Every structure is written in C-alpha cells, then in structure tokens.
C-alpha cells in the first residue's frame, strides 16, 4: 500500500520538478549572429556594433538589436558583452584615457577587457567569435571567469 502510494507520489513529483527546474531544450537553432563585414571595424579601435540577435524568450522568438564592443587587430577579433560583469550596467570606451569605464560604480577595464580599477569581480565577458570569409560572426557570451 505504502509502496504503491509512494510510487504514485514519485511519478507525479519527479516530472513536475523536472518541468519546473530543468532548463528547456533548445530547439536546435544556431546561436551564431551575423555581425557584418570585418573591414567595417576600424583596426585597434574599440567599436560599438549593434547587431540583430535572435532572442528565444519562451515561446516568443524575435530579433532584437543587441550592442557589442569589438576590438580588431588585423584578423584577430575580440567581442565583449556590452554589460559590466559587476551589476550589468552598460559601459563605454573613454578615448583619451584608453580604458572602458562603467559609469555605475566606476569599474575600468583595459582594451583586453582586464579589470583595472573598481568593484568588477572579473574581466569583461566575451562572445565566441568566428570569421567566415570576410564576415564576423558572434556566438554565445562566455563569462570571463569560465574561459
């Protein structure tokens, strides 16, 4: 009796927990986003690009403008996520001081994304990048602490 009752309980609870807690299966869509021609990005000068990135938010799929900071040295490209790793504010490049500055809590980052000053717990997060032909493609954002 207890065994049967227990099995019914488990049979209901386990799927319910899986349903609520486990991440959803991605429906096999590519995460790569076309970020335009490589030579549109000035050499060694941090540039803010706006790309249309597919956003799968539950059942709704849409394309939203997403900003990204790109630094190109020849064919070598680094793409930073536009949010400060501290608390998610948008940061900007300060030309004359040659660093990224987050205006919220004054974290600063080098052109390589390393923390120079301030409360940010880690370097700037980066997109996976790929160059196909003469075009730049952005993949997933990776936390700098995990790279």
């Amino acid at each position, binding site marked *: 009796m207890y065994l049967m009752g227990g099995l019914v309980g488990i049979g209901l609870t386990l799927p319910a927990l899986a*349903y609520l807690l486990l991440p*959803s299966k991605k429906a096999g869509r590519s995460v790569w986003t076309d970020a335009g*021609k490589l030579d549109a990005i000035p050499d060694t000068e941090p540039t803010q690009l706006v790309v249309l990135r597919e956003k799968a938010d539950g059942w709704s799929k849409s394309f939203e403008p997403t900003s990204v900071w790109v630094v190109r040295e020849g064919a070598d490209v680094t793409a930073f996520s536009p949010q400060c790793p501290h608390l998610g504010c948008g940061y900007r490049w300060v030309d004359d001081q040659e660093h990224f500055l987050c205006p919220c809590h004054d974290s600063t980052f080098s052109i390589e994304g390393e923390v120079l000053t301030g409360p940010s717990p880690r370097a700037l997060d980066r997109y996976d990048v790929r160059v196909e032909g003469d075009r730049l493609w952005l993949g997933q954002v990776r936390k700098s602490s995990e790279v």
Partner: protein
Amino acid sequence: VIRALLDWIDDRTGAVSAVKDFFDEEIPASAGWHQVFGSVALFLLTVQFLTGVLLAVNYAPQPETAYYSLQYIVNEVTAGRLMRGLHHWGATVMIVIVVLHMVQAAIWGAYKKPREMTWVAGVLLLLLTMAFGLTGYLLPWDNKAYWATVVTLQISALPPVAGDLTLRVLGSEEGTVGAATFARFYTLHTVVLPAITAALAVFHVALVRRHGVAPQPGDESKPKKKFYPGQVFKDTAAVFAVFVVLFALAAFVEAPLGQIADPNDTAFVPRPEWYFLFLFQILKFFEGSLEIVGAVVLPTLAVLALAALPFIDRSRFQRVGERLTAMAIVAVAGLVWGVLTWAAVVTTPDQAEGPGGGDWARLTPAQLAGGLHFTERNCDSCHNVVSGEPKAGPTLALVIGARQSADWVAGHIAEHGGAPRNVREALITFAAEITPERGLWLAEAPDFGLQGAAIYEKNNCGMCHVVNGAGENLGPPLNGVGGRRDPAWLAGHFRDPQAFVPESTMPPYPFDDDEMESDRRLYDGPAVKTAYLRGALRIQPPPITTSPS
C-alpha cells in the same frame, strides 16, 4: 519528541485526530472494491489541478500566442510533453472514472435516502467535469479546438433569449470565436470551474462522511469494518492502477495538436471530444426548427432526470440482484450512449488536415517563391535568411542600413550563374522585402505553399490578381478564394475559366496533371496550385496600416 510535537499540533489544531478519525471511520461490512471509484476520481482531480497549474506557467492565453506556447511546452520544455499528456489523457480517464462511479452508485442504490443530496452534488460534479472538457478543448487553439468551439457556441445560441445572453457572457458576437471568447473560456477553465469544483467536491466528500458509506441489506447484522487498512489498501491499489494507465498514455500516446486554428478553413470537419460524440450524433436526428430539441431540450431533460433519480426511485434498499429495473435502465442508457458514440465515430470522415493557416500565409507569393528559389538555387551555401551556421555572405534579413538595389541584386545573380526571369524577379523581391519577422514566418512555410507560390509567380497570376496586398487589381482579389470555391471548381476553372465565369477574361491555364494532382495524397486532393489557393489565399489580408503623412 515526535509524540509531544504531534500532541502539541493536535491540541492547537485538531489536525492529528482529524486524520485519525478519517482513517478510523466505520464502513459497512459489504464495502469493497466496488467503492474505489470515488477515491480515484478525487485523485484524478488532484492530478488535473497539479498538471493544469504547471501547464499554465508556460502558457500564453491569447489567440495569437496560445498555439505557439503550447508547441513550446510540448517541444522544448523538459517533461512538457508528459505534463500535457497527463492533463489531456487525465481528462479522458476522469470522465471514465466519474461515469463508473455514478454507475456503481446507481446499481448499488447508494443515492437512496438519506443520500439524495450526495447524488445531486455528484451529478453537478459530472456536469462540471464535462464543462472542463468543453472549455479546455479550445485552449490548444488548433483547428479542432476552434471549430468544435464554434459549434458549441452556435448550440448555446439556440435557446430563445437565454441563447443571446449566453453568447454575450461567453464574449461572442454571432457565435464566432475571438479574443474575448478565448479569454472567457480560459477564465472559466482555470479560475471559475476549479473553484466551484473544489468546493463542490469537498461538499460531496463531506456528505459521504456524514451519512457514511451506503450499506447493503444484511449489513446491519454484521460487524462494521474500519476504513483503514482494508479499504484504504483497495483505494490505493485502484489509484495506483489508474495512474499507471494514465502515465503510460501520457508517455506513449501523443496528445493531438493539429494545425493552428484557421477561421477560414471551411474544409475542416469539426468533431467534439469522444465523450461528447453522443450529443453530436443526436443533433443529426433533428432538422430545422426541431434542432433545439436535440441540442438543448433533450440534454437538459436527461440531466434533470439523472439528478431526480433519488426522488423518483424512493423504495427501500434492496440487494443488487433484486433491483432489475435499475439495472435495466443503466444497461439501456449505456447501450444508447455506446451506439450513438459508435455511429458518430464511423461517420467521421478520415481527414487529412487542410493546408492550415499560420503566419507563413501572410507572405506574398513573390516572397514565398523567392524563399523557395533561394534554397533551390543554392543561395543558402553563402547566405542565411535569418539564422544558421556562419557563412561567408551576409544574412539577408539582418542587413542593417541600405539594401542593395534591384539592379545590383540582378547583377549578383548573373555573376552566380543567372536564373530565368521569373526566378530572378522573385529573388530580387525576396532580397528587398525579407525581414527577420518574415524570415521566421518563411521557416514555417510548408512545401506546398512554396511550390504553389512558385507556380503562381511563374504564370504571372499577380498581373491580374492581388494576394496579401501584392499584385494588380484587374481580376478578383484571391485572398479567401479557397474558402469560397472547392478544389474541383478551382481545378476546372484553371482549364476553362469561361465555362465557370462566362464574362471572365482570364486565359486558360492548362496545368498538367502532375502540377494539378501531384500531392493529392498529402493535401486532400488539391493540386499544388489549388493547395496554395486553398491555403495561403484563404488567409484574409492583414489589416492595412496607414502611416501618418
């Protein structure tokens, strides 16, 4: 310590002794396996509540989104398919168990004095269960859901005066299903019905406890049993068995989800859920003004008779074997129900679902044809439309800023091997008009839609006709023509337009049999061409938005 804690809780709340009393309740010596159905029904109600809440957290209750959010639950959410399966099949199993519960009570005479109100509450619970089925049927927002609900609304509109009021309460004008009706069905299904059902179920169970389980003749001379452990074991075993069946159904038999609801799909033959089929079949016997008899009067009388059973049959308790009249009534009711359901099943045509609507049908023929040529001409080896693996050429829908001119695109196509004029033009239109949103729609377009659009473009149908706002207005606009004309008319009209419309100036389009019949099996007869007419063209044109000048 546990003893002390339990005592404390019992002293302050009485919960412990309440549970103890519950299990120690005395039941007649004749109680046994035939009385498990009530517990099983209560268990299933809990399952429906639980899975219903879980479905609701990922469900977007709007006509525009409901179908897609359900697809998301089924295809992407972990265990989502199982949850929907449990909820869908749970409804079916619930009906079976509730009916068995009532049949048992009827045969054993458990409705007799003083248990009349227990029976009446039970009849109300049966109606609520059916109301759950009726309102829940609309929520997937596929063709079946939509058209079955249209029929439901038309039926509820039949009674004079009350019909109009019912329609208004259900948010429907003239028996159509729109956003307001959807919201009301959703509210009924997830707020109103659960609240009433929970309250009534508590009342029903409280009455059962108040009057005790119905005894049988001879019980008075035998010592009473306790609910625990004997009957609790039987109830648990029954719950377990039913749950195993339900779980297996949910895991292995996929709950149907058809094409997204298409209000213009006149070819769709709606059928209600199986437990309503007998009502559906009754409707066929009443014609014209008598329809209300089958749709409203008879079902109402049947429900009233069912509820009045304890007041009609007021004799003393008798043994099961001596209550032949009651047995006969139950048997005849079961037989009639079975025959009507069977008749409805065998007269249901096998239908391959029509082409179906969907956002893809909002694209113009040139955009659809362009999308087809884009793949067939291998443009996709260098370009993505909206998303895909990195490629050397730009993603067409995401080109920010100025697009290339038509001449440039024509030159680009020429550089890559060229294409016939109609293909080139479709590709140019495609390159100019594709947006991320349209790209996502295109990804959903079925093959016949693409092929049909390509034939439409190749034959320059757009020189005289408008579809989705594209084309010239010399001939009639074609949106919705698939709903106005049947496939045979369309096919015949292509071969000889003047035979059907004498004043027509349309030249004949003798599509070969391949074109006309190629995917007959897939699309219920229509040719590629007519499939497009019946599918894409069936969609009403999107509302015209004027930009402020």
